[in-house]
Structures are given as structure tokens and as C-alpha cells.
């Protein structure tokens, strides 16, 4: 298959189209707007549904509506917009209908800026909205991976009747890379006896997230938790790079993971036994595998484009059994590989490192 050069946001959009996305609802926000623009053209050309909503609140609730009808549906946004979507996501998860949400993160908090950031890690992996739930969170480090994970997101959303998200950042959204776009057969989707398609020849269907009375809502919560356990058991994904003989392992995802790969390579070239552990599913987080990896290394260096959010999961995975260092940049600042390499060197030879 021939490789073509694509921009991240457009690659994700095209992947969604190939995955059989039937409806897209969105609202412009930098740095994901090209995704919406791409959909505005291609979805219409294909006779599918594209609608620019009046807000992210509306967009996610349009997604909710289309999901209730059983359509393959998605939206995309960036951090402030993702915050606005939390209400709808909580409702969608409780209603157990499938949907895909792309978050091309930018610097925060507040209006922040439009530079790449991973500041939404907590919001994305720990629930984000009200109530007990998590969404599936997939973190691409390359555009090819962004394509593959977007396609996977639709299948996972279907499989678990929940929300699957892509945690990307402005870097992934904006860069151009050669990618392969797979030709996909029309998706084989699970039966949807629950969908709101009109009560013809069957009892009426109700989709609600309201369950009055403690025991009723508890039952729903227990079922949602059961689904989450299934997701944790089946869907953990990660990538490992140069772990053999590694003493210092960088833990990083997405754009940070991409930078870390370069850094690890350079460290090895300088004789420092470094490796990379790159979680691909941020929820479910690869706790067990990371714990396993950590058993044979001396140090972990968590590198994120935030104040240290995944850091907490790394500490949880390893129970702080080994020194865990953190290097992070906030506010949309992306460090150079040299800056990260300096951190590795500091760990490798503490006396040489700057304080």
C-alpha cells in the first residue's frame, strides 16, 4: 500500500471515515479544527452526516442522539471544548451507547494556548465528568498510530457500548507524516436491539441515564464497573523500545513518547542503558506490565507535557519500589530531545548533573 503525506488531524478524520463513521458533530477549536474541516468536506461528499454545532455542549449531545440511534458517530475537540463535553460524556457512558471522542489537547488551564500539551490526562483517564466511570483512552505517538487507534476506537466503543477517546495533542494534530490508510470493509457491528429506531414490531426502547432509587442506580453502576473490568482485562496496549538491559526507563506517551524514543536512542549511543515504555492505552493503564518492566530496571523517568499526571499511575503501578523521576513541561512548552537527554544523564551520573 502506498504511503501518502497527511496532516495529523486530517489523518484521524480520514481514518474515522474509513472506519465507517456515519455522523460527525463538532465545533471549531484550535488545534483540531482541520479535523472538522476535513469532515465537512468528505462526509458530505460521501452522503454522511456532518454538522457544525453551536457549541461543544451541543456537539456532544448531538453525538449522544446519533449514538442512541445506533449510528457510528464521533466528535473532535481540544481541551476547553473537551471540558464542555464532560456532561454529555457522562450521560453517554451511563446510557451505554457507543461514541468516539477525539481530544487534540492544548495548553491549559483556562483558555491556555494552542500549543501541544498533555494537561488533560487526569480529566481523560480518571472520568472527567460526574459519577463513577472511565472512558477508553488511546494515545497515538505517530500519525500511523493515530489512524490505527482511531479505527480501533470505533470498534472498542461498539464492543463495550461506551465512549472511546483519542488523547492526542497539538503536535500529533498538526504535524505531517507519511501514512498508510487501510482499506476497510464495511464494519461488522454488534447487534443493537437497544437502539432508538422506532418501536416497530417490538416493545419500545428507552435510553436514559436516570435511575431513581439507590438500588436501581447501584445496579447500573455495578454493570458499568463490570464493563470497565473487562476493558482492563482485554484492552491494555503499550509499546516497548530498547528495554533489553535498560537501567533507566523513560515512561512517556503520545508526543512525549515520540520525543522519548529519540532520546533513548541517543542515550544508548552515548552508552547509557536507557529504554522506553510507552503506554498506548492510558485507560486501561498498563499497570501490570509496567510493574513487570520496573522489576529489572534501576530508575524510571516519567516524561509528560504536564505537571506530572501519569506520574501518579506510574507510582501506583510500581508502588514506589524504585526511584521515579519526573520531567515535565507545562503551558504548551515542548522540550527538545537534548533537554530530556540531560535528565537521563543526570540520573545516570547524579554528580555530573545540575541540581
Amino acid at each position, binding site marked *: 500500500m502506498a504511503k501518502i503525506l497527511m496532516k495529523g488531524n486530517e489523518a484521524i478524520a480520514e481514518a474515522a471515515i474509513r472506519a465507517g463513521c*456515519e*455522523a460527525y*458533530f463538532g465545533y471549531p477549536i484550535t488545534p483540531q479544527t482541520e479535523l472538522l474541516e476535513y469532515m465537512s468536506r468528505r462526509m458530505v461528499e460521501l452522503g454522511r*452526516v456532518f*454538522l457544525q*454545532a*453551536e*457549541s461543544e*455542549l*451541543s*456537539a456532544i*449531545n*448531538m*453525538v*449522544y*442522539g*446519533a*449514538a*442512541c*440511534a445506533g*449510528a457510528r*458517530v464521533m466528535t473532535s475537540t481540544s481541551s476547553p471544548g473537551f471540558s464542555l463535553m464532560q*456532561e*454529555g460524556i457522562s*450521560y453517554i457512558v451511563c*446510557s451505554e451507547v457507543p461514541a468516539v471522542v477525539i481530544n487534540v489537547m492544548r495548553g491549559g488551564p483556562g483558555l491556555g494556548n494552542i500549543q501541544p500539551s498533555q494537561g488533560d490526562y487526569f480529566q481523560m483517564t480518571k472520568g472527567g465528568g460526574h459519577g463513577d466511570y472511565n472512558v477508553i483512552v488511546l494515545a497515538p505517538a505517530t500519525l500511523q498510530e493515530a489512524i490505527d487507534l482511531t479505527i480501533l476506537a470505533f470498534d472498542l466503543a461498539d464492543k463495550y457500548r461506551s465512549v472511546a477517546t483519542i488523547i492526542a495533542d497539538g503536535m500529533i494534530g498538526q504535524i505531517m507524516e507519511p501514512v498508510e490508510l487501510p482499506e476497510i470493509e464495511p464494519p461488522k457491528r454488534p447487534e443493537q436491539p437497544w437502539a*432508538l*429506531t*422506532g*418501536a*416497530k*414490531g417490538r416493545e*419500545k*426502547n*428507552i*435510553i*436514559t*441515564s*436516570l435511575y431513581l432509587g439507590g438500588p436501581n442506580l447501584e445496579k447500573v453502576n455495578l454493570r458499568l464497573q463490570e464493563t470497565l473490568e473487562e476493558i482492563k482485562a482485554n484492552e491494555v496496549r503499550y509499546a516497548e523500545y530498547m528495554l533489553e538491559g535498560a537501567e533507566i526507563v523513560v515512561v512517556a506517551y503520545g508526543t512525549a513518547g515520540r520525543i522519548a524514543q529519540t532520546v533513548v536512542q541517543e542515550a544508548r549511543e552515548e552508552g547509557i542503558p536507557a529504554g522506553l515504555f510507552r503506554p498506548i492505552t492510558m485507560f486501561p493503564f498498563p499497570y501490570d506490565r509496567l510493574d513487570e518492566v520496573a522489576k529489572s530496571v534501576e530508575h524510571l523517568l516519567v516524561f509528560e507535557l504536564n505537571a506530572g499526571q501519569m506520574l501518579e499511575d506510574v507510582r501506583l503501578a510500581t508502588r514506589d519500589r524504585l526511584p521515579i523521576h519526573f520531567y515535565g513541561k507545562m503551558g504548551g512548552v515542548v522540550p527538545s530531545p537534548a533537554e530530556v537527554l540531560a535528565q537521563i544523564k543526570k540520573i545516570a551520573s547524579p554528580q555530573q548533573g545540575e541540581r
Partner: protein
Amino acid sequence: MEKKAGFAKPEALTDALTHYCPGCTHGIIHRLIAEVIDELGIREITIGIAPVGCAVLAYNYFNLDFAEAAHGRAPAMATGLKRVQPDKVVFTYQGDGDLAAIGTAEIVHAASRGENITTIFINNAIYGMTGGQMAPTTLPGQVTTSTPFGRDVKLAGHPLRVAELIATTSGAAYVVRRMVTKPATIASAKKAIKLAFQAQRAELGFSLVEILSSCPTNWGLSPLEALEWVEENMASYYPLGDYKVIDEVKSLK
């Protein structure tokens, strides 16, 4: 003497007894919608969206596919449902807090887009479900639990006239205001609901029927007094009438 039922429960309603307070006009309006759905023969292709508010459990009372929306978001949800299955009939059922406060953006833009859905808007000038607080449609001077001295428009702003507002949108095909205080007004409301659904069936765009409704419990009136209050106080601030009826809808009559 053999007798036939001249009036019975419509098929589009379930047997469930509603949770609404005695004399609450939600029940009348539910029935009117169900009668219209029966008469148009669209029960099996109609999908309703319930709001947050007193009608949050409307899905239990209609014998139709139904979704329950987040507060104010019913028009957005309806948009999603309708866009992916344009052959279905989709309607939202919303109260004044849901539609005219927290969901103002959603309703205005659904109307403005000419979204081919129908909204039944229940205006009873108060928040019923939460126990009688000021609604965007609470009348000037009206006492509620959050305007204990009466709604002072200098402090709390003015009531919103929704039918008039929505009628200004280019996408709206049919926007009217009715009330359900006596058999004649109820018949008129039903005709409007029917026309709204017919407009949707004919793909003419957005339709909204605002219905002045009563809340005896939170107004502190008997159900009969409450209907009088609708006629005497609400209908003067919110005049009944046809605010927008495009020619194509007129020809449906």
C-alpha cells in the same frame, strides 16, 4: 344497547399512571401528543426526547421509543437522532427551565438550522421539579421560592417570550402558542400539535408549539384556580397565537 368507546386511552400512551400532581396539565398535553401520533399513524416511527424537569419520566408514559436528555440538551440530542434517520419523526418535550434557561442555545440553533424536528414547549412560569423556583418565564411580580418578594425585573430580569423569539428564526416553519385550560383551548392545542408533526412529516423545518400550562402545587392554587390563573395572568403576558406559519404549513391544513 351496544356501545362503542367514543374516547379512550390512545395507543401511544402506556397504562402507567403519571407521577404528575393532581390537575397538572402535563397529563393533558401528553395525551394530546399521543392522540396526534395515533391519528397520524406514526407511533412506530416516532422517537421522543424527555427533558430534565417534571417531565423527566415522560418516557414511561409514552408507548414510543424514547430518550432522556441532559438538562436543556434535548434539541441537540434530537438533532443527532434525526440527522442519522431522517425518515423518523423526532420530537422533544421540554419545560421552561429546560428550554428557555439552560437550553436556550440548543433550541435557538435547532430552530435556526431548520432542524426537521418538533418541540412541545411547556411554559408554566416556574420550576416545578425542584420545588417552585423562578423560571425564565416567571411573570414580573410572581412569587416563587427564589423570588420570595416577587420577581423584580430590575434584579432578576424579564420573562422570555419563547414563541416570539423562535418565530424570528429563518429555519422555523411553524411556531404557535396555545393553552390547555378548557375543552376549546385543548382542541386548539391539539390541532397545533398535529400541524407541527405534519410539518415535520412534510420536511418543512422546525416546529414548536408553546403551551401555557399550570402548576397548581407550586403556584399554591387548586387545579381549577390554576387554570384561571393561566387565562388571567399568563395569557396576557404570553398572548396565544400563531407566531410563524410558513405557507407550506398553511397548505397542510
